[in-house]
């Protein structure tokens, strides 16, 4: 049962990612990226990361990609303003050939690891142990993240302002 679910989610994730790279219109790419991200959140749930499953759906599919689609619709890009990519398929094919050695290297390194997961029946991946870990060992990075978000907010406002002549 878990295997069927895993294969289904993995094929949806990879299919969504391929669609994102191959589609010409940015809206189609964004919609297939949403498919890929929701399938990935299912994979997180299979890895018993229930809190990150929710965070992935809420933050990625709910906020980031929605913002992206909003911007795409806001810009109202015509077909003439899209870049023409006459050699897209050739560069994609050559690039995928070039990426094979990297994949072989990393997958061989991981193949040596012991492969099956330890089965323990505690509340691994729930919100409470994650919060305990976060505020016991990772307090300073957590606070720095808030500063980073503030800086990004100010930067986005400064970039988005209409410049005076």
């Amino acid at each position, binding site marked *: 049962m878990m295997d069927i679910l895993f294969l289904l989610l993995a094929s949806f994730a990879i299919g969504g990612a391929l669609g994102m*790279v191959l589609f010409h219109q940015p809206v189609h790419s964004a919609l297939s990226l949403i498919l890929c991200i929701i399938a*990935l959140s299912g994979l997180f749930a299979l890895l018993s990361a229930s809190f990150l499953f929710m965070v992935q759906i809420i933050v990625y599919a709910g906020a980031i990609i929605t913002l992206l689609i909003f911007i795409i619709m806001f*810009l109202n890009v015509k077909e003439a303003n899209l*870049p023409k990519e006459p050699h897209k398929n050739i560069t*994609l094919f050559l*690039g995928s050939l070039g990426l094979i050695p990297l994949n072989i290297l990393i997958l061989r390194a991981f193949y040596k690891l012991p492969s*099956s997961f330890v089965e323990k029946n505690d509340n691994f991946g729930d919100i409470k142990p994650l919060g305990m*870990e976060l505020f016991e060992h990772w307090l300073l990075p957590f606070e720095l993240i808030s500063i980073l*978000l503030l800086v990004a907010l100010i930067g986005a406002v400064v970039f988005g302002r209409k410049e005076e002549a």
Partner: protein
Amino acid sequence: MIAGSLFSYIVVAMLLLSIGLLGVISRKNIFVIYMSIELMLNAINLIFIALGRHHHSMSGHIMAMMVIAIAAAEAAVFLSLIVVLYRRKKSLDSDIFRSLSQKESL
């Protein structure tokens, strides 16, 4: 026994990472480049969470959460940059934005 092994998750994550890298190096639309970066961050998240499950420690989850927060910050800045660039040049072609390039700008 596919869903219970670390290696299958790593295979999926590496495929997603390769597709993202492929999108960055071979597409010209800056929206697709941005989405490919997001996809690569997601693939790294999957590796973090699979390794956290493998070692039965929560640190992988914490790292994945940090990556999600950084991706949110990156989304805001990148999308406002895209808006500014599109307002100036009326195009989404990443080859047009080359006024900082050392080659002669077209």
